[in-house]
């Protein structure tokens, strides 16, 4: 177990290093010069040369990478070309918004799909199961930004449960802030919840057909006790992996849905910064998002081993 853990941690570090290289190289080789977006088209060649020198753009790429990586490791994300302020400071509030949105969406996915998946499987073929199957099909095929627009319309404009576009800052109060974030989180969570319900239902039904469930019944278990005591833990194993992959999807979904709800999160910052060729900001966001996804997958891998004794020690 210890050996596996060490191996996994090393693999995690290697993956993150690769991410930094890709993020750095990709934005260094795409056409476009950050100096022109900073100085404008009328800048003199002398001005451009001076700026390139100041930003370190004349150094070879590997030197620039190492310098950037060194800063990254010590928490210095560099300075934004565009805003002239440290990237860390610039991103602080964006990160709060996006992470709050992502965590809220994940909690919603778990809270919605686990009970519904269990009920659908427990009463397979019943009214609830059939209604859920239809709802699932619809929800799954609606993209999250469309769900977002519908939520803005219904809950924001018709029912007036929140004021679209007028985001409350967490400084004024976490309650109103989370209430506002609940609606975009729902937009991100709905399509994924539908998939998770379908997946969990299938996993439970497949486990219910296994030999050990027949053994459980032969000992006098009712259908419910067989489900809770025997099936769930086994059925959750594939679902945990699926939920870990969901994290990547949530991050991507959040970026789009932020636009619909007017949230100044990482998504908005990313789009603006790419337009401005503000590479330090873009690279920091890419590395940040990749780190969240990779770390969540790592956590899922560990959880997977805890849940399935057959994988321990491997």
């Amino acid at each position, binding site marked *: 177990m210890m050996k596996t853990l060490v191996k996994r941690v090393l693999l995690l570090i290697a993956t993150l290093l690769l991410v930094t290289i890709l993020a750095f190289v990709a934005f260094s080789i795409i056409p476009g010069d950050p100096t022109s977006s900073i100085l404008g088209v009328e800048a003199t060649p002398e001005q451009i040369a001076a700026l390139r020198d100041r930003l370190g753009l004349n150094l070879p790429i590997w030197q620039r990478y190492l310098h950037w990586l060194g800063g990254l490791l010590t928490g210095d994300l560099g300075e934004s070309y565009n805003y002239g302020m440290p990237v860390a400071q610039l991103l602080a509030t964006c990160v709060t918004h996006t992470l709050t949105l992502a965590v809220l969406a994940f909690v919603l996915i778990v809270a919605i799909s686990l009970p519904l998946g269990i009920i659908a499987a427990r009463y397979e073929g019943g009214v609830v199961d059939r209604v859920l199957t239809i709802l699932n099909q619809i929800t799954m095929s609606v993209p999250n930004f469309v769900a977002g627009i519908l939520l803005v319309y219904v809950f924001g404009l018709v029912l007036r449960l929140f004021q679209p576009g007028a985001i409350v800052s967490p400084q004024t109060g976490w309650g109103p802030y989370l209430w506002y974030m609940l609606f975009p989180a729902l937009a991100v969570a709905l399509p994924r919840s539908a998939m998770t319900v379908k997946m969990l239902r299938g996993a439970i039904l497949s486990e219910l057909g*296994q*030999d*050990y469930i*027949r*053994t*459980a*019944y*032969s*000992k*006098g*278990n*009712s259908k419910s*006790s067989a489900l809770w005591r*025997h099936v769930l*833990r*086994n059925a959750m*194993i594939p679902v945990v992996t699926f939920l870990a992959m969901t994290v990547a999807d949530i991050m991507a979904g959040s970026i789009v849905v932020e636009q619909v709800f007017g949230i100044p999160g990482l998504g908005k910052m990313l789009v603006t910064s790419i337009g401005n060729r503000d590479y330090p900001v873009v690279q920091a966001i890419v590395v940040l998002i990749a780190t969240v996804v990779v770390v969540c997958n790592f956590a899922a891998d560990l959880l997977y081993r805890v*849940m*399935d*004794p*057959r994988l321990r020690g491997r």
Partner: protein
Amino acid sequence: MMLQIEHLNIAFPNPKGHFEAVKDFSLHVEEGQVIGIVGESGSGKSMTAHAIMGLLDRKSVKVSGSIRFEGVELLDLTRTQMRSYQGKDLSIIFQEPMTSLNPTMKIGPQVEEALRIHTKMPPKERKQRALEAMALAGLPNGEQLYHQYPHQLSGGMRQRVMIAAALVLRPKLLIADEPTTALDVTIQAQILDTLREINRKEGIAILFISHDLGVIRALCHHVVVMQQGEIVEAGDVEQVFHHPQQGYTQRLIASRPTRTKLKAGGSHG
């Protein structure tokens, strides 16, 4: 009479008509008896075992006739009423020891599960009973196995765990549905010894199901031969083995590999 099965019919209704898996099956089992049911696969022997245990799906399988256990008609019981017999007076072990245990549950809780369901015994006492049942099933190192998972055990040991779990409440009847078919021959002999011991020491009646008349002969007093859902021959096991009345029974006996036949087979290739 402990178990009395009369004119049992098991059918699978489907759009094209009925498929009758078991037809007019009758069998009596007295306390402490060891009875064998033999037949090739598809002869309906496992189906009969599942019917006695109440494990057939009530929606898709039609069971008629009578299965009386200590005077109670099991076929008239609701599912909830039937549960009070399952794992308590009636127990079963299956053919596949590799898949019949829950892979993510430790051995201990699986062995004592029937105690948890049917009694209000405190955990400490349950564990004591589980360890006793494991010793009876030929697992002397129960204390160590208690905290292990099924995948850490061999097939033979898993089947012993299944036996221990089935015995933990000292049932009156243990149904053994091809319990040694998936195991190799030496382990098979050891498991048969264990079952014989359990019958002798605890007086638990055993209904032993196999496709192998030789295995039945090593364990049972009485045998029922089934073919395509029907009983074709029944009687004292030695009688049936040495003087089979039916061609089917003769073929079952002849199909057992013997030393001479193995030699003859070897010369071919």
